[in-house]
């Protein structure tokens, strides 16, 4: 399967080409080139998946891990070396499908959404760069290669968030995203170095003696790696960059900040899962608590936001929390014995990528139509935008976990895994699932029903989006409708053995009831034109409402810590030392160099006889020094 290298090379070439030619290409040509390349990559990914899963299981009943291509890039001596290569196993192949599908949809969608924007070519170049980096991340054969692409993904995310670089908020948001995730990546890097130093390899699967030697430090290394993952996957308290990242173009939010990049942290934990389970189960459970808290926090905040992209952003954070929880509640590698969460997490990653991309793309159509992100500019849009309305509703039902949409199946497995871990965890996660249904339908009603902003709509009549935008919506909605029926456990499970999904109807029944209650509450509060109930609640619990609206002041706490403590107490003295002592030394160096230069410039006289005297004198001088010693 050597052709898999093309999966990385094609988008890379497309990036180089679009980046170098830039505005010399017509926008439509640049867009078409990027889209065609992504289409080819998608076909390659599907073919890879087809032939990989088609080849069947090996004698021990698992899908074999293939490395069709590998090269030693940087040897350090000993067993330690950094490789660059391609690794195929069930989860990386599953991710190939997710990334290439969503990326292709976003490429097509952007034709309509970004039409006429300045920097259209640059936009497509960055999309190609992102696609290449993300595919490289999931295909990495070792943790260091993963880190390299991890950072590349971060860079492309930075470039795309700051795409409207003349807008102040976009610049600030891109910086924030980059700094926060870089800060988390520091933990990741230290974790990698500890791991590499003590096991003597960067491989995902070191041999037993190496692991035995590193046993004491593995929990630390894995914990630090999780910090990196938490940064990328916006886990509390490192989530602050994701809502701001919505300043980027909406299709970018769909691709990077909903479907692919933000689940890199989940993928990382899944990738290291055998080590987590074997050597650091307690760290794994800590991740579960972090994920659960994040899921709850983000769901509460999502209930009161007024910017539709922010609601979706917090919903993403909350859903990623679900995936992390599912991984974290695993207690063994056997899916029948407490390893169910692994499969559930990957399943939810898959389904969530599809319906969340759909939600963002739908939001993009709405923003395109009313030129605002605020709910106050919307309401009653169902009349104007039928396709967007129906597909958005499908996605809302899916994320709320209504049978028979895809979200029901994956969320049900997560809840089942949580209940097996502890009833408390199961109860909390079920409650959050209810909250999810509530805030998603609040969003849905506020956009498509409720109080229409007639003034605005009269001035500028909303209209359905062009085909280039609605076709991806319809495609993703179809996937969302049917993806739940994929026998996911047959492909991906914690120990690689086939796992037959059977729905636990007690859990499913509870979660369905809770979801229905959430939807009903939202319907009661937001369907009608007047919202006396909702407004009344907001007034009665104004403290809580205000706190949630301001995201519980986490950003302000960060501001305080960075400005008042770090900048004032650490950075200012260090800056003084740098300015006066370090620069002073450099200035002294410059001064001395300058003076000496004046003094000795006479040597270079241009007189060749003098030159010879210097040569002879120099030679004799050296000889005398050597003789004296």
């Amino acid at each position, binding site marked *: 399967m050597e052709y898999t290298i093309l999966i990385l090379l094609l988008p890379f070439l497309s990036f180089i080409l679009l980046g170098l030619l830039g505005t010399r290409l017509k926008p439509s040509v640049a867009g078409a080139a990027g889209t065609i390349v992504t289409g080819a990559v998608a076909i390659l990914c599907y073919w890879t998946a087809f032939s990989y899963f088609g080849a069947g299981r090996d004698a021990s009943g698992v899908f074999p891990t293939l490395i069709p291509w590998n090269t030693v890039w940087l040897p350090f001596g000993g067993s330690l070396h950094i490789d660059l290569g391609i690794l195929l196993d069930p989860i990386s192949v599953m991710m190939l499908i997710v990334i290439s599908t969503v990326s292709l949809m976003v490429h097509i969608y952007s034709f309509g959404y970004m039409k006429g924007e300045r920097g259209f070519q640059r936009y497509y170049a960055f999309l190609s760069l992102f696609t290449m980096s993300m595919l490289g991340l999931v295909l990495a054969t070792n943790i260091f290669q993963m880190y390299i692409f991890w950072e590349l993904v971060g860079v492309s995310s930075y470039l795309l968030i700051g795409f409207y670089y003349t807008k102040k908020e976009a610049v600030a948001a891109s910086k924030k995203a980059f700094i926060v995730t870089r800060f988390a990546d520091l933990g990741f890097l230290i974790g990698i170095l500890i791991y590499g130093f003590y096991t003597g390899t960067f491989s995902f699967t070191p041999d037993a003696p190496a692991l035995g030697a590193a046993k004491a430090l593995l929990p630390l290394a894995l914990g630090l790696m999780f910090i990196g993952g938490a940064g990328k996957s916006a886990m509390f308290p490192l989530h602050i960059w994701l809502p701001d990242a919505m300043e980027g173009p909406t299709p970018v939010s769909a691709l990077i900040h909903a479907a692919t990049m933000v689940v890199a942290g989940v993928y990382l934990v899944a990738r290291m899962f055998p080590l987590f389970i074997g050597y650091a189960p307690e760290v794994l459970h800590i991740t579960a608590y972090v994920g659960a808290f994040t899921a709850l926090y983000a769901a509460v905040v999502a209930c009161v936001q007024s910017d539709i992209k922010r609601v979706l952003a917090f919903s993403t954070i909350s859903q990623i929390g679900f995936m992390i929880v599912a991984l974290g509640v695993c207690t063994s590698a056997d899916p029948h014995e407490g390893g169910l969460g692994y499969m559930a997490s990957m399943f939810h990653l898959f389904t969530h990528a599809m319906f969340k991309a759909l939600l963002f793309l739908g939001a993009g159509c709405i923003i395109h139509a009313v030129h605002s992100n605020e709910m106050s500019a919307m309401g009653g849009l169902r009349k104007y935008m039928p396709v967007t309305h129906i597909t958005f509703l499908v996605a809302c039902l899916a994320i709320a976990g209504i049978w028979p949409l895809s979200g029901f199946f994956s969320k049900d497995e997560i809840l089942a895994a949580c209940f097996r871990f502890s009833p408390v965890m199961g109860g909390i996660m079920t409650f959050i699932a209810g909250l999810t249904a509530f805030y998603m339908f609040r969003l849905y009603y506020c956009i498509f029903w409720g109080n229409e902003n007639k003034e605005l709509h009269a001035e500028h009549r909303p209209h359905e989006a062009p085909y280039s935008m609605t076709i991806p919506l319809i495609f993703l909605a179809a996937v969302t409708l049917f993806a739940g029926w994929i026998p996911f456990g047959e492909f991906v499970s914690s120990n690689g053995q086939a796992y037959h999904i059977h729905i636990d109807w007690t859990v499913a029944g509870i979660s369905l009831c809770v979801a229905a209650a959430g939807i009903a509450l939202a319907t009661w509060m937001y369907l009608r034109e007047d919202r006396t109930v909702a407004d009344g609640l907001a007034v009665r619990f104004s403290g809580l409402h205000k706190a949630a609206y301001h995201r519980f002041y986490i950003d302000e706490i960060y501001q305080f810590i960075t400005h008042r403590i770090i900048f004032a107490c650490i950075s200012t003295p260090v800056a003084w030392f740098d300015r006066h002592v370090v620069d002073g030394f450099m200035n002294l160096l410059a001064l001395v160099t300058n003076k000496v230069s004046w003094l000795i410039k006479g040597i270079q006289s241009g007189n060749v006889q003098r*030159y010879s005297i210097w040569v002879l004198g*120099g*030679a004799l001088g050296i000889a005398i*020094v050597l*003789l004296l010693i």
Partner: protein
Amino acid sequence: MDYSGIFTYMYSEIALIGVIVAALLYDLAAGEKGRRFFHHAVCVLMLLFIAGTVVPYHKETAGIFGGMYIYSPVGSIVKSILAIGTLIVFLQAEPWLRREDTRFKRGEFYVLVLSTLLGMDFMISAGHFMMFFLGLELASVPMACLVAFDKYKGNSAEAGAKYILSALFASGLMLYGISFLYGTTGTLYFEDMPAGLTGSPLQILSLVFFFVGLGFKLSLVPFHLWTADTYQGAPTAVTSYLSVISKGAAAFALMVILVKVFAPMTEYWQLMLYIVIVLSITVANIFAIRQKNLKRFLAFSSISQAGYIMLAVISGTPYGMTSLIFYVLVYMAANLAAFGVIGTIEQHTHGKVSMDDYNGLYSTNPKLAVTMTLALFSLAGIPPFAGFFSKFFIFAAAFEEGFHVLVFIALINTVISLYYYLLVVKAMFINRNDSPVATFRSDGSTRLGLVLCLAGVLALGIVSSIFDGINLYAFGM
């Protein structure tokens, strides 16, 4: 005597002689029409030559002519690198050679350059001091002709005279040193020499005098004074050849001789190099910051670069040898790119080489300005360009052998060098100019040369297999 080894081990030199003879015959026989393709013919010949010899044929070291000539795989690698550099120089020399006043003697240019290359190849593979000296002279004498190639220009003629006089003086001292060596040891074979070396005062004197000859070629302080005048006066293509190819060969030969022949006197030559490195890097930097003429400026830059190369020599280890070759390769890419830009601008503006002329270059010729910037960044050793990696390896090689203070001094000097390299960048990007260099499109040959150099600057550091490949052979040093 068995001569069968000539063709098996001396294949590179024999092929090069073939190229020289072919160029000579072409020059004689081709008519007015055929001469138009002289450039292409020579470049294709060089390409074939490089393709045929780039990978060493033999994995073992072997001596022929009773040990006068020694084949080594690592030497073969160096020869290939030099040949590639020569090809790039040919590419960049094309617009200059096509001019009215040089067109008729372009054949001489090729033959002279290739002759010096042949001399360097023999110098690299010498196994005997006389062989070595012959190679050195074969590399020096045609070089003087090249420096004075524009002989009706005062600058060029003066540069040629200064070069040949300085070269003669250095060669004289070197021969004097070699005669002492013969007198005290009774042999001139590299192989037999170490047994007779004891570190007696006369031998120390001969070591220093011998070193003068190569120190001159490498333009190390205090044997560097000819450099600036010659670099400034010589045609730019010749200057770039002189600054890279000639230095690379000399640095390699010096390391081999010091490590192999002067092994019993290691402490002496290490001290000698210590002094010379500190002087070269520091003095060259001090002079470089004052220069207004870019060719003079790069002359001093190349002196300090030679000082850095000596850091690899002083380590005396196989790792140092790898770093040296890698450094030469990277330095070649960057320096040829810089000289390529200077040369093409000089051609299109009738001789503008002052730093002030480069003010505002970015606004009119952005690609050239960016190429120059990347080349200078690489020379200064800024990551992620190749120069950073090559400097890193050199420093590591010297550091591992315990030269901590020396490496520290070299590090401080890289900071100073950054200042003057950035002066040029500042001129191109920031300084205003009412009459900047007009926008022009350089010819295909120059551009090909520049692209090759740029590819080197960008890729050599990242593609680790190159360093590893060299390393594989260097352990056979």
